[in-house]
């Protein structure tokens, strides 16, 4: 099968997930677009050289994205701007009260997630938002499946505590 066609399918399949993963971690549409674009560019370079060696394109792309985010923070310094204005919500509900409530919960979760440590953030994003399995996450993070299960359990607990703390402060 033509390489370009094959990678095009991979792009269509994972662009939303990779963008979302990057966006949640960097909290900026502009930076998320840059890094997500770079992820797929590097993915395409590797795919051209060795497409038979990439048995799990999703895991592979996540690893690239992860490394790019680390490099980004290393260069720019860690300055987390909790901006709630740049989220493109698709299909907003017509009812204003519902919109406000949904946006409020949404922002609460997003703010709380950003305050967790990197490993916990990633576990939650991959497992609950992107539906990655435990073995897939273990593979991306190079940890055992047991370690991933423990981490997920602790990540949820930490997120819950973070949300409760934010609620009390509000």
């Amino acid at each position, binding site marked *: 099968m033509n390489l370009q066609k094959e990678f095009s399918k991979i792009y269509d399949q994972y662009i939303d997930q990779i963008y979302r993963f990057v966006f*949640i971690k960097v909290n900026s549409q502009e930076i998320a677009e840059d890094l997500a674009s770079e992820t797929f560019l590097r993915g395409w370079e590797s795919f051209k050289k060795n497409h038979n060696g990439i048995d799990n394109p999703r895991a592979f792309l996540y690893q690239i994205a992860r490394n790019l985010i680390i490099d980004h923070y290393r260069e720019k310094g860690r300055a987390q701007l909790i901006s709630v204005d740049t989220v493109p919500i698709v299909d907003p509900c017509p009812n204003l009260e519902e919109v406000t409530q949904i946006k409020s919960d949404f922002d609460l979760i997003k703010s709380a997630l950003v305050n967790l440590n990197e490993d916990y953030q990633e576990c939650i994003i991959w497992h609950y938002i992107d539906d990655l399995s435990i073995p897939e996450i273990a593979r991306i993070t190079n940890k055992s499946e047991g370690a991933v299960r423990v981490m997920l359990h602790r990540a949820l607990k930490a997120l819950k505590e973070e949300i409760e703390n934010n609620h009390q402060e509000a």
Partner: protein
Amino acid sequence: MTEKDLIAKIKELRQIKPRQNWVILTKQKILSEEPEFVRGWASVGFKEILAGMKFIFSHKLAFATLTAIFVLIGTFGFAQNSVPGDLLYAVKKITEQTQRTFIPEKEFNIKIVNNRLDDLIKIAQNNSFKNLAPAINEFQASVSEVARKIAKDETKNNPDEIKKIVKDVKNIEKRTIEVKSFGIQIDENIEWDGMLVELIKLQVQDLEKRTLLPEQIESLKEIKADIEAGKYSEALEKILEINQN
């Protein structure tokens, strides 16, 4: 908020999507770009340079070799006292690795963890705080390695093998507590905890198949409660006690 509610709210973050025109433009850009690979390897003629060096130094080579051997022996000797962060620590690690040939892999990995614990105790006793951070990192790396190896080890399904592993693991836990008593802060190691949970569960399964005394049955209940509470060390201690009786 229940866990179910929390997960439902997390899933709402799926609403985050990229701009469609950006998606299309990026795809076009990536798949139509042909990057240029510029390779600029300078070919310097290494063989010619080496031949020249050999020609110049051949008369003094024998003496230089002997000197090098003595320096090496001295270096390896001094290196054994080094700790992470020291200049000669890399040499110590190389020496450790050579022992891999003579010791079974499982024992070797445990030995490395114990060596790192020895390093931490030495640092605490000498108050050499500059070495603390690298030593903790080295310790954590060795612990993660052991955890990963145990997780993949298929012989751990053998009851006798499990007992041996549990003993080694408990010993590491005990020594880690000893190191922490010096005031050294060692963070949780998620690989280690994951491995402990799996190991303890295997032991619990094995114990449930056996005929236990009333006090052992009680102990088993406590072990299960310890697992729920995340008290893995206590659970392990109780398992060892049951196995010894």
